[in-house]
């Protein structure tokens, strides 16, 4: 026990003690309420539904295809199709529940969704007072506007808008092609 090792160790702690006053590199603690915010662009927590335009229900992108419900590992999504007054199924979910106490934020529903309608929110202050009603996110709580989506995930939102525009353009082309082909067959009759 000739003591050099211990003294060298003490020097290191002393360096850290004075270093924490000086270099930003050493003191990395961020005091939560008033300090900075370390949320990154990709960070994800609980999913939310995107809608275009103003009216949440009308502009909803989700068509209740229930792909995400099947693929979700802990089975925490529950969807019921919407029926209009004559009982015909509508392309819109009447009930879209996510049980936030079960959801582990694994983002599989986002990858499976063909209509770019469900994305991950990075807001992590989700504490509520009761475990059952508070953490059952129903459709109204989940719906958030596209502008909000652009605010929290700019790149992802931009990419999904481009893909949607691309799909819209292709659909119009097919529409035009079918109309042109129908108009071509019309005159022969």
């Amino acid at each position, binding site marked *: *026990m000739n003591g050099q090792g211990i003294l060298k160790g*003490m020097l290191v*702690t002393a360096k850290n*003690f004075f270093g924490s006053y000086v270099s930003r590199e050493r*003191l990395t*603690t961020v005091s939560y309420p008033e300090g900075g915010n370390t949320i990154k662009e990709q960070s994800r927590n609980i999913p939310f539904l995107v809608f275009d335009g103003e009216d949440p229900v009308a502009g909803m992108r989700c068509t209740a295809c229930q792909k995400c419900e099947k693929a979700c590992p802990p089975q925490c999504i529950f969807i019921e199709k919407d029926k209009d007054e004559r009982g015909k199924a509508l392309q819109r979910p009447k009930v879209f529940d996510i049980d936030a106490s079960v959801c582990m934020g694994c983002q599989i529903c986002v990858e499976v969704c063909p209509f770019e309608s469900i994305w991950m929110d990075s807001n992590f202050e989700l504490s509520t007072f009761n475990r059952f009603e508070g953490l059952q996110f129903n459709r109204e709580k989940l719906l958030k506007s596209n502008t909000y989506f652009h605010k929290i995930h700019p790149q992802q939102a931009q990419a999904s808008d481009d893909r949607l525009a691309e799909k819209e353009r292709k659909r119009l082309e097919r529409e035009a092609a079918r109309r042109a082909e129908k108009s071509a067959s019309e005159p022969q009759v």
Partner: protein
Amino acid sequence: MQDTLNLFVMNIGQWLSANLGTLNNPDQIIVEIARWLRTEFGNWGVVGFILANLMATVPLIAVFSGCFALTTWLERKGLGRIQNRYGPNRVGPYGLFQPMADGIKMLLKEDIVPERADKIGHFLAPVIIMIPAMTGLVFLPIGRNIIAASIDSALLFFFAIGSIVSLSVFMAGWASHNKFSLVGGMRAIAQLVSYEMPLILSAVVVVMFVGSMNTSVIVEAQQIKSWVTSDAPALQCLGQVLGWHVFQPWGLMGFLLLFVSALAEANRSPFDLPEADSEIIAGHLTEYSGFKYALFFLAEYVNTFAIIGICTTLFLGGWNGPNIRPPWSDDPQALLIPGFVWFFLKIFVLMGIMIWIRGTLPRLRIDQLMGFAWKFLLPLAIINLLVAGCFYHMEWYFGWPFSILILCKSYAIVVRLNKSKLVNSNRTYTYA
């Protein structure tokens, strides 16, 4: 009763006017007031007797409990900064009210006593641990003739009281009927009993040199009398400092030995086996909660203060500090800066070193702890005793090289003896 009171007040007025005129030695103000009060209490009979005793002890307890609160804050802030994080900064400015918050929390916590615990033993342990902690403070010379009890076998009394700590720690361990606290209690006895030997032996060196066990005499002896009474302020300053025992070769070795065994006596970091929280949860304190735990905590810190106080009085010249005589006074003994400032400064510097050690070093194993005490500290303490003896009788030009040579050689020998054969510390790592 009414007339004694206004008589008392009138006396104060008359005394103040008398003394304020000639403040020839500033640091003696407290002593003057105390002496005057004692004469005043003298003629109050039994009540006066009790008040005089209380006047000697109550400020002692108040001051050192205040130091305890300050040290808990200092420790958490210091450890925090060592670990690159903020210490407590929520309660009050810079977290200064944190000790108060801890105290209130401890008071409000429920005091759980295990059902099959030995009720009386469980209750008595914190009480008994308070006795040695508090009585240890009585012999510390805080300032020039500011001392609670200046009896001539003070040092011996201090070490005698110190041995009761192991009794109460084991009682706590055994009474709380919990396997981990039993193991903690056993470790505590082994450690406290075996570290008393080096503690006493390293203190005996100073007694041998000074010739008396009275702590205030020891502190007086650490001034170079000729320099202090001379006129040049520089000499006065140095006289108060260079006289400390720590600047002697045997003094330095004695101080290091005393400090290391003080670490062990107070269960501080490399030797905190009795409450090793990674092995036996909290050792003898596992079953204590609420204010009993706070009492143990307070007793441990006050015990640390007592032992550090003894370290400063023996080797760092208790209240001696770089100090000059105030120009306007004629009394050769007067000091500009009061003695207790230096005393508390030294205590907090030593406490800072202890916190620094606590932030760095891991814990020793129980058999290494024993080996360290009996095979490392004890031989060094005995050799230090011999060297100091020879040093006393030699001239300084012959004594210094002799003692430095012997001490370093013995340190190297003891280190080589202790290096266990099994362990070779320089390991070669082949790369495949």
